[in-house]
């Protein structure tokens, strides 16, 4: 079910945004409108939906409208046109009081430069959302303490914000958002201000937390690797418009246009693509009782060097045999079972290529790919791996 649904969302910055709207409808580009009127189209006619429990990443270069978009989702920016449905209610129609309730209970935000209150201690910062809601001091304290522990800041409760490192500050920012137990968390480039190493820690921490909490997360970044690492789905934004929305694997394999192709060029594919994404499904499969001679014809017809021996009833892989082995079998009158190799390597379909490369170095046979039931579903050769990486 979709938690957030955004329809035709447009945000224009300027004195008379409604007037400019017609131009957007007519399909004028952001640049043309800026030249003509001096007003900026932050985002134009954006459509997407975010599923419950999904991490949805919005990626784009600086100035592409990422912040504008995410700030519309909790109405820090008032959209010029369009609809935003959260749980099938259009939040743009909310009055002041409904908006406050929405912000207090359903949605929380983590800011790029943390947005922490420097006059408050760590725990007072985390308590803020609960304080605003009117919870008692004890309740606030207990919840906040627990939340701080969850983000790895146990023992730092009474420190001042200025005493923390960047990474710790953003943990406080995260804890402040989590303490409210919102259904949706908005994160606007939360880790951009951090060192690469700290950023990596924060990534694993977030993935870890998310696997337990299953919140709906909208995450902004300009870093492709970050986007693909964290996102279940990624939307690419360019000049205020969405160019492509897909899973990371799908974006890498089928980029919508040259812009996206360029974008994903520098990315470390071996950490994104999985066995399933690169394997060849077509394979010559036969049972171990087959006549070697017939097997040879099958392989020759398909112009391949290897055959996979499958157990008929279970679809499980039993071994691999080369065309040379088969020729030997014919000559020495042996069966396939006697000559097949069972020292082949197999991987699960969700294993990343990065790990498969290491496996590929220790075997001379193709690598078999198995599904959850350990059934054979495809094969990976060294050549396939290389191709997938360029």
């Amino acid at each position, binding site marked *: 079910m979709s938690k957030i649904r955004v329809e035709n969302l447009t945000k224009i910055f300027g004195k008379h945004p409604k007037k400019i709207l017609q131009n957007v409808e007519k399909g004028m580009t952001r640049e043309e409108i800026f030249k003509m009127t001096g007003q900026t189209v932050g985002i134009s006619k954006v459509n997407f939906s975010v599923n419950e429990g999904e991490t949805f990443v919005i990626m784009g270069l600086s100035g592409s409208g990422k912040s504008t978009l995410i700030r519309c989702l*909790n109405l*820090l920016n008032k959209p010029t046109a369009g609809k935003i449905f959260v749980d099938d209610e259009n939040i743009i129609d909310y009055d002041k009081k409904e*908006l*406050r*309730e*929405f*912000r*207090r*209970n359903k*949605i*929380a*935000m983590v*800011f790029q*430069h*943390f*947005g*922490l*209150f*420097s*006059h*408050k201690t760590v725990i007072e910062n985390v308590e*803020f*959302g609960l*304080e*605003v*809601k009117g919870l008692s001091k004890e309740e606030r304290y207990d919840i906040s303490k627990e939340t701080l522990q969850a983000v790895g800041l146990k023992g730092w409760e009474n420190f*001042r*914000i*200025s005493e923390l490192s960047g990474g710790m500050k953003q943990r406080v920012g995260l804890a*402040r958002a989590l303490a*409210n137990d919102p259904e949706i968390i908005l994160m606007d480039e939360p880790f951009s201000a951090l060192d690469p190493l700290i950023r990596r820690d924060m990534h694993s921490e977030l993935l870890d937390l998310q696997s337990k909490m299953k919140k709906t997360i909208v995450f902004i970044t300009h870093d492709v690797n970050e986007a693909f690492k964290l996102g279940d789905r990624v939307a690419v934004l360019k000049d205020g418009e969405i160019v492509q929305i897909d899973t990371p694997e799908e974006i890498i394999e089928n980029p919508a246009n040259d812009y996206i192709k360029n974008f994903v060029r520098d990315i470390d594919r071996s950490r994104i693509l999985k066995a399933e994404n690169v394997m060849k499904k077509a394979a010559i499969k036969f049972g171990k009782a087959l006549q070697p001679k017939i097997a040879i014809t099958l392989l020759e017809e398909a112009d391949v060097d290897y055959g996979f021996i499958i157990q008929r009833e279970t679809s499980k892989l039993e071994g691999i045999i080369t065309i040379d082995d088969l020729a030997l079998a014919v000559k020495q009158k042996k069966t396939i079972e006697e000559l097949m190799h069972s020292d082949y390597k197999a991987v699960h379909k969700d294993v990343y290529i990065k790990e498969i490369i290491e496996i590929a170095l220790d075997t001379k046979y193709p690598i078999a790919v198995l599904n959850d039931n350990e059934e054979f579903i495809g094969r990976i050769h060294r050549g396939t791996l290389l191709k997938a990486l360029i």
Partner: protein
Amino acid sequence: MFEFPQIFEFKIGKVVESFVEWLTINYAGFFDSIKTGILFVLLKMQMIFEWIPWFVIIGIVFLVGWKVKGLKSGIAYTIMLFLIGVMGYWDQMIMTISIVLAAVIISLVLGIPLGIISAYKKRVDIILRPMLDAMQTMPSFVYLIPAIMLFGLGMVPAVFATTIYSLPPVIRLTTLAINSVSKEMKEASQSFGATPLQTLIKVEIPQALPTIMTGVNQTTMMAMAMVVVASMIGSKGLGYSVLIAINRTDIAMGFESGLSIVFLAIIIDRLTQSIGTKYKYD
């Protein structure tokens, strides 16, 4: 010689006088309530200071000075206060402090909310700004005139003039402080569903406090300067002693009372200033 022709002469003062008379008669209630308000605060201050024994006052100044500035400063302030007493100006000093404090309290009660309003409403700011500019460029003596006109001679007009004179810095710095609270912090507060009032009280005012404290310090020092001037229209205290000394060309008295004022000014300045810097967060 060209003399200014008598024919153009027009006693504008008479008009103003009758206007003020009209004002004080028709708005007697209004001015009376200002008068009662000022007197109330002033008398409370005097009562408090007369009730505290002298050694307790010195003790408190020592402790506060020690806490906020260090042991040496604490001792220095103690010696200064003690010297004022030794020179025989203790009672006058208490009087001066009461007037200054009364004026400062009234200034803050008016000035901080005004400063906040003007940070929020551009229109108020546009009206207030030139008025504050004018107030700050006018010589302090000028404030004595409306004070006398409205309240006559005595303590009340002295406190009134002092209050008006010391009001601008706290308004200005409060506005500045509220306006410079980081946008991301305000948005963070809003994003959690805080009402504008909650954002003001829980985020903006605490964030603005260090700068507002600078305003408090400046306001206090302005009041301190003005209270001496205001002795011309009837505030008792150290300023009055200076005034008498000038009239009598009494060098000894002038020196002693002048020195007492300097000591008092130093103590008040340093204490309010360092209380302000204690509030800095980063």
